[in-house]
């Protein structure tokens, strides 16, 4: 099984998929899963931009909306966690995870999911001391305060993850676990990011709960992003196990933002996305601990007269399994709960919380609470039933190529040297990479495909043909129809 790991996505899905596809072609491999460590920016429309904690000049729709509207289909199953730049209103609809677009799955505030026999865990958001112990009180409309605190990690989510006892293979967090810098080439990191020195030396860099989880869960791999720089580390645990840590950069040219992980075939299984029984049983066991007050709250621990160990028993796991019946998470459950993107519509801050059917179904099955629904009900408000937004005909007819996108600087041949250099540098310096015999790429540009490429001015002409093909080829054709495509030839040759 091959997994591609991406650092911060920052809405640049087109580029990331281009990268992955070109890599597949170049290396002659098939990538089964793409995981992304936050700042995904699942922005569906102009309103969602207002639920993202960024200055207005960055209110850029980027490319996710195409995958949401159905204009494009993600060519690779994509799994992501939330970071600190997210359409928080959308992610709040899916506290326990769900499809944000066909083939793109959000893991939830915290969560564990299975892909084949691989167990992947994730913790969304970033750590901020002052909000850590608070309840889950935020709801749209956001104030300038709650717009930020909504993505701050809460102790309840960490508490839930720390109940897990079965082996987690891959763990993701957006910010780095605290102290991780000490397990890698710290000097090199400081040379590249000198401003981190003070934080590293005072052990302030990174997230203490992530550090705690790294030490408790001892996953085989831990991926993170956030600091926009690549950094590898190896943590040896007391019991002889190891966690290979890798932080990745954001998706920009010449940046190390993508990593391919080659895993043994024993993890392959059915290569389907499935719910994790142990995790769901923890969710069910800890449902009563949910607080939606914006005050600090504590969780039960040793010495209290209520239960404090929520690691599920076999009986509890069996019960959850019987409630769920089918563990496979099928793409069919995706529902559009907000209108698709229309350029030039006003950006109105989302003021209503929408009930996402995916969350409703899971909550009903497990008989657990949707934190947002409780937060609203506590205030006497209720969630809005979703209207069903299907892909609109008009959109299909719109020529896709005229996208006022901010594209990275055109790729010049000099990049090739840079690329090969860094690749070798990586594989030498990094036991992480050599051990797993991975192919590394910071592929920021897709090489020209060998297939025939022709310029298309009107997609509608081909829509019928595409519908029949219904596969990724059509996407890549559309993708390569960009102004830069002619410059790729030499690059792909060089590789």
């Amino acid at each position, binding site marked *: 099984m091959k997994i591609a790991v991406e650092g911060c996505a920052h809405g640049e899905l087109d580029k990331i998929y281009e990268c992955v596809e070109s890599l597949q072609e170049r290396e002659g491999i098939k990538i089964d899963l793409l995981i992304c460590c936050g700042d995904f920016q699942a922005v569906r429309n102009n309103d969602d931009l207002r639920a993202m904690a960024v200055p207005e000049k960055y209110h850029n729709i980027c490319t996710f909306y195409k995958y949401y509207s159905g204009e494009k289909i993600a060519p690779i199953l994509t799994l992501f966690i939330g970071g600190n730049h997210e359409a928080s209103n959308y992610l709040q609809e899916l506290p326990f995870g769900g499809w944000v677009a066909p083939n793109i799955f959000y893991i939830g505030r915290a969560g564990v999911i299975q892909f084949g026999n691989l167990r992947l865990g994730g913790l969304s958001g970033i750590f901020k001391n002052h909000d850590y112990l608070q309840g889950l009180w935020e709801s749209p409309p956001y104030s300038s305060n709650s717009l930020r605190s909504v993505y701050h990690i809460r102790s309840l989510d960490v508490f839930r993850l720390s109940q897990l006892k079965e082996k987690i293979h891959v763990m993701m967090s957006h910010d780095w676990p605290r102290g991780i810098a000490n397990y890698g080439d710290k000097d090199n990191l400081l040379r590249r990011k000198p401003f981190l020195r003070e934080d590293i030396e005072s052990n302030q860099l990174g997230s203490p709960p992530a550090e705690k989880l790294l030490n408790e869960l001892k996953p085989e791999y831990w991926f993170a992003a956030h600091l926009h720089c690549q950094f590898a580390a190896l943590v040896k645990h007391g019991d002889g196990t190891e966690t290979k840590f890798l932080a990745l950069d954001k998706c920009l040219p010449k940046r190390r933002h993508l990593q391919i992980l080659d895993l043994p075939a024993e993890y392959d299984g059915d290569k389907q996305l499935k719910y994790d029984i142990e995790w769901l049983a923890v969710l069910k066991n800890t449902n009563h601990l949910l607080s939606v007050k914006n005050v600090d709250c504590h969780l039960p621990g040793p*010495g209290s007269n209520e239960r404090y160990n929520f690691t599920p028993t076999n009986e509890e796991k069996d019960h959850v399994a019987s409630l769920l019946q089918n563990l496979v998470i099928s793409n069919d459950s995706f529902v559009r709960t907000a209108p698709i993107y229309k350029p030039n519509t006003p950006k109105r801050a989302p003021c209503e919380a929408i009930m996402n059917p995916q969350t409703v179904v899971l909550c009903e099955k497990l008989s657990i*609470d949707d934190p947002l629904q409780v937060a609203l009900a506590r205030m006497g408000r209720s969630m809005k039933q979703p209207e069903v937004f299907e892909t609109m005909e008009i959109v299909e007819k719109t020529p896709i190529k005229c996208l006022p996108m901010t594209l990275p600087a055109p790729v010049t041949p000099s990049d090739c040297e840079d690329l090969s250099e860094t690749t070798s540098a990586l594989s030498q310096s990094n036991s992480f990479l050599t051990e797993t015999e991975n192919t590394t790429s910071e592929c920021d540009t897709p090489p020209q495909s060998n297939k025939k490429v022709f310029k298309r001015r009107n997609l509608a002409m081909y829509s019928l043909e595409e519908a029949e093909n219904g596969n990724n080829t059509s996407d890549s054709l559309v993708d390569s129809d960009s102004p830069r495509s002619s410059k790729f030839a030499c690059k792909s040759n060089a590789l």
Partner: protein
Amino acid sequence: MSDKQKTLFCGDVNGNFNALFSRVESIVKKSGPFDVLLCVGNFFGDDNSQLDAYKMRTRKVPVTTYVFGPSNSDHVKYYCEEGCEIVPNVIYMGRRGIFTTSAEVKIAYLTGLSRRELGKEIASCTFEPSDCSAVRDACYRGQSEYRGVDVLITTLWPSGVQQDECQKVDVKEESLSNLIAWLSIHVKPRYHIVPSADKFYERQPYRNQGMHQDYKECATRFIALAPVGNKAKEKWVYACLLQPITKMRMTDLLQSTTDETDCPYDPELLKQHQPGKVVKVSGNGQFFFNMDASEDDHGKRKRKSGDNPDRKRRDIDPDSCWFCLSSPTVEKHLVICVGRHCYLALPKGPLTPYHVLILPIAHHQSITKSPDDVVKEIKLFKDVLKKFYSSTGKVAVFFERNYKTSHMQIQCVPLPKHVEPQILEVFQDEAGINRIELEVLPQYTEIAQVTLPGAPYFHAELPSGEHLYAKTKQHFPLQFARDVLSSPPLLNCEDKADWRQCLLPREEEDALVSTFRDKFRPFDFTADDDSDSD
């Protein structure tokens, strides 16, 4: 997997045991076995002869039955010890408390009449305001996120409940209690069940309110059951299927019904930390914003103004810290013994002769910001002090205030063993008066687990092992713990509440230090260290 409990309630039994149990038997026959039967009113009557058959086991009690305390002094003699069986399968639960059934249903109860509202005490049949807060505290204890209890059983009706606009009911004035209204608004039962003298009454459900405005809580169904076997055929038995509140979805608990009403009780009751106590309103708020590490205004006026510059500098400069062992300002003659990371010293103006301080040698602001070694040694000091105090027949209260202090001080105050049961209550009373939200945390809690490093707090450790924790806000009284410990029920030395009012002359301090050293020697682990190194 059914996690619901089939529950039966009945009103005053008044000795009509046959009527009760034969009815229950026929219900069981019709709708299957029930888990519990709760008798919310008087179990005994003037004639209790019917009970003999159950005692002799010639008749059987069909469902495990729980009986609560008396409200009639003539009946007191019939009750057995709390938690024991009156007859097989009928258990007496006492007058106040909370119990959790095997299905995890929580039942809180406070039976009998209100001594304060009745104006007289009837032995074993009346309750005190402190009983109300005890029941409330028992409900809240150990609950990270309090939702409410499943059932509240009281003899008296809460005042206000009968003023429902749609369903007025005649209830005698003496059956109403403000204290029960206070209890009900605080514990938020899903079912509040009381006995009624004649008529059955079911109020429309009302929605509980949280402490914060507009914070909704679960709804309460208030039901009054008529006496067992009454002639008017008023309903006297009530059956329901209870899912424990902790296993329910909050979403369902907050789901409103069309007939629900607002909470009928005065929301001001929620703000009363202790029932019926008048809450002090602080007068001049401006004063408390003074950044100077000062005391309440009482103390401030008495202090020499010349102290101020010194005090301000103390916060900034550890060299002039009163408590850093290396600082020149430390009063060395007060030091009792020195460990690796901490030392023991006599405080200025001790509450009792063996009142001491545990202080870190280096400058650490609070236990939550101290390194592990320091925390470990503090624990060691606490343990030996506990042993030392208990050898003199005393129990120890430790407290720390990380608020307007720059160097951590853990105060250790020995109290006579016989006052131990009152300590918690006095702390809570004083907290109520000062509007401090004092939380009771279970044994073994680490303060660092409930608060963030650097956040201000007050923390006390009681002889029971329980911890008291409060987030200190602007108006936190600096002498809070001294106020509590010096109060009449505990040390009874109110004149010593302010340490500046009871400063000792140097000779007395020297004498106290040397006696403490002598007596403490067998327990002093720092002395062992010294002899090892010799």
